[in-house]
């Protein structure tokens, strides 16, 4: 456990009545600018190049597999009667879930005035958008004739003479995911504009300066602009908060409005949302813990930031566990044979291995975060967050596959086995995700400099108000 605590200050301890600092060290505004801009300005490291090549190769594999799929037909997947949804929908729900943390950190934590969000929100938002891109891929190719996916849009067609079916939850998904992608993109971009202006003003190269100049729309930092900008940011946050809840709610409707045993249960909307936050934060931690070390951002992304995220993982993991339990109880209490069978089948049927993997990863493994030692040890955090990612993938697997494989018609029961194409696409989607993420690290500001500076200013102001004492500096 090598914890670099700059200044010897442990900011995970907070004395009541004082606020522990979120920016560590004798940091100035300029230090923040330097630390963040260096990430993109210095030449790429070997690690970055290696990582990018691997991710890019996987992305190419995904592309080739999609071509192979379209050319050959969906038979190349393991999807079969009655498990028509199969692997692609598992991946879709998994990626949409990952995509929740970013907007959540930006919007909901903003509304709750959790200032620790400022150091991590940019990367998390970027992650959201890349995860939504991965998520959107899967239903797009799952429709079978992927080149006709635009039929989902309500446009007056001269060939079809018909309109989409708005009473179907799958169409709600189209609207929810595309709205979510669009609003997340706007939110991310808008938050980035002042930082892009910083990039512009630091650029030595004429073309680089011009490119960032166009991207930042000529931002000057005028107070009038800041005032409207902050208002717009607050409004977007207030709009994005219910939006982020609605997206996974609507994804849960895909399942819950049907009558498939194990799917039709009213707890699904909040339970899916909690699960999405859970998996999203796990992914943020998986990426940020190594990234803060590699990019030398320990002063800005402190152990306290990690600890707070661990607490959220613990809370949402427990909510998810509570929902699993409630489902089981109500299946018994409701005394509907099909429901009872569905849940027993999950836990003790042919997919019991997946179910217990899910339980151990999602419910049991985060419980270690009750211990502060675990919440502040980076390698434990990474291990648990990877477990949670695996567990949340399995949660979707359990929901989709085990319910569909054994529904009301026993003669149609079947066991799902993924093909190599299924595996390849799952791995390839990680290639897409990491390619975009690594490009982002090299070209755009990975930390919201303006907001961190504002946090620093407030921190100094509060310290001044509280009569910044010597005791705040003592190590614990």
């Amino acid at each position, binding site marked *: 456990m090598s914890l670099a605590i700059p200044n010897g200050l442990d900011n995970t301890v907070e004395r009541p009545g004082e606020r522990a600092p979120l920016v560590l060290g004798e940091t100035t*505004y300029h230090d923040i600018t330097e630390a963040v801009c260096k990430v993109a300005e210095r030449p790429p490291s070997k690690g970055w190049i290696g990582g990018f090549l691997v991710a890019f190769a996987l992305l190419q594999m995904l592309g080739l597999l999609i071509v192979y799929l379209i050319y050959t037909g969906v038979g190349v997947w393991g999807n079969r009667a009655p498990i028509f949804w199969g692997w692609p929908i598992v991946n879709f729900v998994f990626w949409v879930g990952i995509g929740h943390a970013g907007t959540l950190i930006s919007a909901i934590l903003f509304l709750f005035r959790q200032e620790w969000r400022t150091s991590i929100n940019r990367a998390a938002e970027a992650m959201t958008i890349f995860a939504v891109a991965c998520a959107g891929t899967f239903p797009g190719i799952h429709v079978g004739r992927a080149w006709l996916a635009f039929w989902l849009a*309500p446009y007056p067609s001269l060939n079809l003479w018909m*309109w989409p079916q708005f009473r179907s939850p799958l169409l709600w998904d189209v609207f929810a995911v595309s709205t979510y992608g*669009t609003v997340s993109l706007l939110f991310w971009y808008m938050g980035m504009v002042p930082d892009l202006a910083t990039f512009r003003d630091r650029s030595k190269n004429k073309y680089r300066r011009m490119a960032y100049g166009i991207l930042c729309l000529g931002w000057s930092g005028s*107070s009038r602009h800041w005032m409207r900008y902050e*208002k717009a940011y607050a409004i977007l946050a207030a709009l994005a908060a219910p939006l982020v809840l609605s997206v996974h709610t609507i994804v849960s409707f895909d399942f819950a409005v049907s009558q498939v045993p194990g799917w039709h249960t009213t707890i699904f909307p909040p339970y899916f949302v909690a699960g999405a936050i859970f998996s999203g934060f796990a992914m943020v931690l998986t990426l940020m813990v190594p990234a803060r070390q590699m990019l030398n951002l320990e002063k800005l992304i402190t152990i306290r930031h990690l600890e707070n995220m661990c607490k959220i993982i613990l809370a949402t993991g427990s909510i998810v566990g509570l929902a699993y339990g409630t489902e089981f109880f109500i299946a018994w209490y409701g005394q509907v044979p099909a429901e009872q069978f569905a849940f027993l089948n999950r836990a003790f049927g042919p997919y019991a291995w997946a179910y217990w993997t899910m339980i151990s990863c999602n419910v049991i493994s985060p419980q270690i975060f009750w211990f502060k030692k675990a919440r502040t040890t980076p390698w434990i955090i990474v291990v648990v967050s990877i477990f949670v990612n695996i567990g949340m993938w399995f949660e979707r697997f359990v929901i989709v596959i085990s319910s569909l494989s054994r529904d009301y018609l026993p003669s149609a029961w079947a066991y799902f086995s993924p093909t190599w194409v299924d595996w390849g696409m799952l791995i390839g989607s990680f290639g897409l995700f990491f390619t975009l993420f690594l490009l982002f690290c090299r070209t755009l500001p990975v930390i919201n400099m303006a907001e961190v500076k504002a946090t620093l200013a407030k921190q100094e102001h509060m310290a001044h108000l509280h009569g910044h004492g010597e005791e705040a500096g003592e190590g614990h």
Partner: protein
Amino acid sequence: MSETKIETTVHGMMAEFTTVDSLLSACRRVRDAGYTKTDAYTPFPVHGIDKALGIKPTVLPWICLIAGATGTCIALAMQIWMNSIDYKYIISGKPFLSLPAFIPVAFELTILLASFGAFFGMWALNGLPKFSNPMFTDPRFDRATDDRFFLYVDASDERYDAAGVRSLMADTGSDYINEVVEDDSPKEVPKPVFLIWGLSVAASLVPLICILTMRVTNSSQPRFHIFFDMDFSPAKDAQQVTSLFVDNRAMRSDVPGTVARGQMEESLDMLTGIDVEALTLTDPPRVERLVRAYMQADDQAKAEEQETLEKEAEATDEATEAAEAAPASVMDTTPWVEKNPLTVDADLLATGQQQFAIYCSVCHGMDGYGNGLVNQRAQSISAPTWVPPASMHQETLYADKYPDGKLFSTISNGIRKMPGYAGQIKLKDRWAIVAYVRALQKSQNASLDLVPDAKKAAVEKAVEEAKAELKRQAEEAEKAAAARQQAQQ
């Protein structure tokens, strides 16, 4: 702002500060000194500066509210128009206008449009994008996005006077005060940028143009099929062969042991003509076989049953010819249904008559005496293997000796040379024929007493006419036969 091109147009005065607090106090000083056209430039939003500078609140929330409400209305109107008015389509038993189901999309569009309102409204109100700004001319201003804070007083302010502003700013403790001058850097965009821009626009137009060309032109080439077998389905027609199944038949028979929908509406009694309940007492295995054969589409069981019936029928045949003492055959021991299971009425008899005329009369004759056209022809050519059809009017075929069920079974499964007609004649029509045969039998033994009095005369007259006609026909036939004989000789 005056655009008179002197050497440098002065836009205003700026002062640099290193801390938030010094900027804020400077702002208050400038505001209190009466300047209104002022602004501050900071690397992050500074709270309280709107008060310090006297900036008014923005109308942005109203723009969002209106945009959001527009989104709700558009979404609801769109869904109601598309699914409840223009293209009505029943899905999962929901009403055409299902408000709960329209809520999610309405919500999403509300958020989407309100977000657009906030995002684009903010840029519009801020007058951005605006790539050139006089402030940018000062190289020190680059730090306005890093760690420096700038206060700016515009030259168009009524109270503006360069020296006064400069001294006021110096008074607030600024280290660096400078005039903001017109941006005189070269305006033209470097040529490579145009080149790249032009090329990318051209490249992005290519696919669009291709698609548009394809939409408006005709081609002699066949369409490109991505999934050939989806566009041209390899479905088989009824009588075609296929390599998919061992028996090479594309048409599949029912799966043994299953009952198809719409089948099994009739009782086994009706399907076989056998009183199954009675048979259960004497021969349970046969009942089991009948169930498999007739109710579960077991072809093998059907073949076995058929074989038994045929063999026994032949045996009976021989037995009657050879000796009366032969052991009782299946045909005799089977408990046949005594009574036609269908309600016998005029309609049923009409059906029976029609079906009899089509299928039976060719051999058995319209009158049932066994002298149909086929028989006549066979007799005339003296076909050696011809077994003359039975007359319906022999006493052994009357209902008391030959029950309805047995007659039905004979029609269905055949007897001697007569093939089974189960394949050609529908179940109920076979029972209708049974009913008609009974009527036919009765007609040959009916007495005139059965005819109502009112119609007696007509019947008698008709009988006379018929007899005369028969006589005439017989004479003609004789004459014709004589003529043929003469001709042959």
